[in-house]
């Protein structure tokens, strides 16, 4: 039995059911023919069916749990998403340069780059992207507390 696959399959089934239920409130075409709901409904049925297949396959006795990733690596990979979320949350207040430097520094330290390499690298890349996007491509990056 492979637990992660059973969860994945169940997730697909739940998403399929939720989608289907949501589409029940969609309006019909004039004349009563199915309109906006039809395509998502077909998809939700497919999703439920495929989810069932994955669940059934995961229950087979000979499918052992073979998660080939290290738990630490999974955590570090997930942390990348957290860093992006932090960027979204604080960039308006702190501005691009500080936020970008900080999250890159965080990620580099997490990937065991030494501080004396990581700090100049993070700052350098942040300055480079600012130059590239703000000066050359004219994308207004948030200036934040450094003003602008």
């Amino acid at each position, binding site marked *: 039995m492979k637990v992660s696959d059973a969860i994945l399959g169940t997730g697909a089934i739940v998403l399929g059911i939720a989608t289907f239920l949501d589409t029940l409130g969609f309006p019909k075409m004039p004349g009563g*023919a199915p309109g906006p709901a039809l395509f998502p409904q077909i998809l939700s049925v497919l999703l439920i069916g495929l989810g069932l297949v994955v669940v059934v396959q995961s229950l087979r006795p000979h499918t052992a749990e073979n998660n080939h990733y290290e738990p630490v690596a*999974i955590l570090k990979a997930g942390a990348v998403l957290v860093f*992006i979320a932090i960027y979204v949350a604080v960039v308006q207040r702190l501005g691009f340069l500080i936020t970008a430097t900080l999250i890159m520094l965080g990620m580099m330290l997490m990937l065991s780059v030494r501080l004396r390499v990581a700090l100049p690298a993070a700052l350098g890349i942040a300055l480079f992207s600012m130059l590239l996007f703000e000066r050359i491509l004219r994308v207004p990056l948030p200036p934040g507390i450094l003003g602008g």
Partner: protein
Amino acid sequence: MEAALSGISHLADPAVIITIVLASALGLLFGAIPGLTATMAVALLVPFTFFMDPIPALVAMVTVSAMAIFAGDIPAALVRIPGTPASAAYTDESYKMTQRGEGELVLGVDVVSSAIGGLGGAVCLMVAASLLAEVALQFTSFEYFWMAAMGLSATVMVASESRAKAGIAVVLGLLFSTVGLDITLGYPRFTFGEVELLNGIDFIPAMIGLFGVAEVIRNILGGEVKFKPVKVKAENIFHGVGRTLWRYRGNMLRSGILGVIVGIMPGAGADIAAWLATAISRQRSREPEKFGTGHIEPIVDAGTANNSALGGAWVPALVFGIPGDSITAIVIGVLFMKGLRPGPSIFSEHPDVIYAVYFSFIVANLLMVLFGYLAIKGSTFILRVPRNILLPAIVMFCIVGAFAINNSLFDVGVMLAMGVVGYYLEVNGVPVAPVVLGLVLGPILEKNFMFSMIKSNWDLTLFFSRPVAALLGLITIALWLSPIFPRLFGRSHRKAESA
């Protein structure tokens, strides 16, 4: 003819020449660094293409992908790690030859066979696309519906690990594509009250999330890779290449054609072309006993096939708006962003764009010999680029890139959400590329399905009433049934054996 000349003149523009040089450098770098793929390089290019004219944007994407697929061969030969998945099929073979001191020949064959494969792919693209565009002009919503359905089904069928999981990925992508105002009544679906979602999930940030962020995550999941490159003098990498390639000219022709066909098939790209070419090479070889010991034949075959597949993938992308691989899935997104609708009409409305794509394939593959040589020379340097600094930098470029399209933090949020989806799928062994294919093809599939249904007054038999539609429909249904029937077959066979 006029359009052809105008296509050429576009490439002579200094801005385009600079674009080609920069794109080559980016492609070679991403291809040669293990873990960074051609698709990722093209995805990261997208925010920049937003600020370019359509032709330099397309030229850049062609160049990046061609260079990256070749450059993936370099670390395969030097450190036994494929630079991109497209070089995985013959990594062992190349490394064994390098260990035996034949590294120069391997790298020389890599670059020249890639260039020849790419040129062959370009020629096939020109011929096939122009011919198919004529046919495609006759297509109605029925044919388009089946084309999109067939493409998505093929994507699921070629999935390596689990077809059910690949199916979930495709349906998920399709489901994402239904977010926003629907095409029949303009009813807002699955927007959760967000005004920004009324126009649907923006394709560009979604793709940067799935191909950029998720790829960084895949790299980190893989753990730290330590390698020490084998020293290759690389003084005269072209010595003996001509003789070798002439000897295997038949192989190159076969693998070049195979690559184009695999490329044209939606969902299958350069990596599958390389695997198939290696397998057929072994089957057809006069010296199959040499395979696995460090033999040049499969390297010639697969090196040709993976680059010719790139050109092949553009055929359905340009003619039908249906991507042949994940790179052209991105290209279609960029075409739409530029107001160019891929499909048969683009051939008559914007022939200069089409010719510019053709010629940039030729230019990129000719330049590959020179730039590839330089990249091989500098390979020890490229392989020393610290990935632990590069990965955070790529995350940063993903963030700024997603932001730059609409100057909106909401788009960074979309990218993050897709990154989360990609992360979960990646950890559970679900391929991410089919999600993007679903996202691209969803609107085409739904629009043509609904149009066909309304046109035919809900009579499903009309989906098979036109000959081409019927043929495409039958192929698609055969694809759906294929996982069921062989299994039934297999079981009865096994039963017979045990009895």
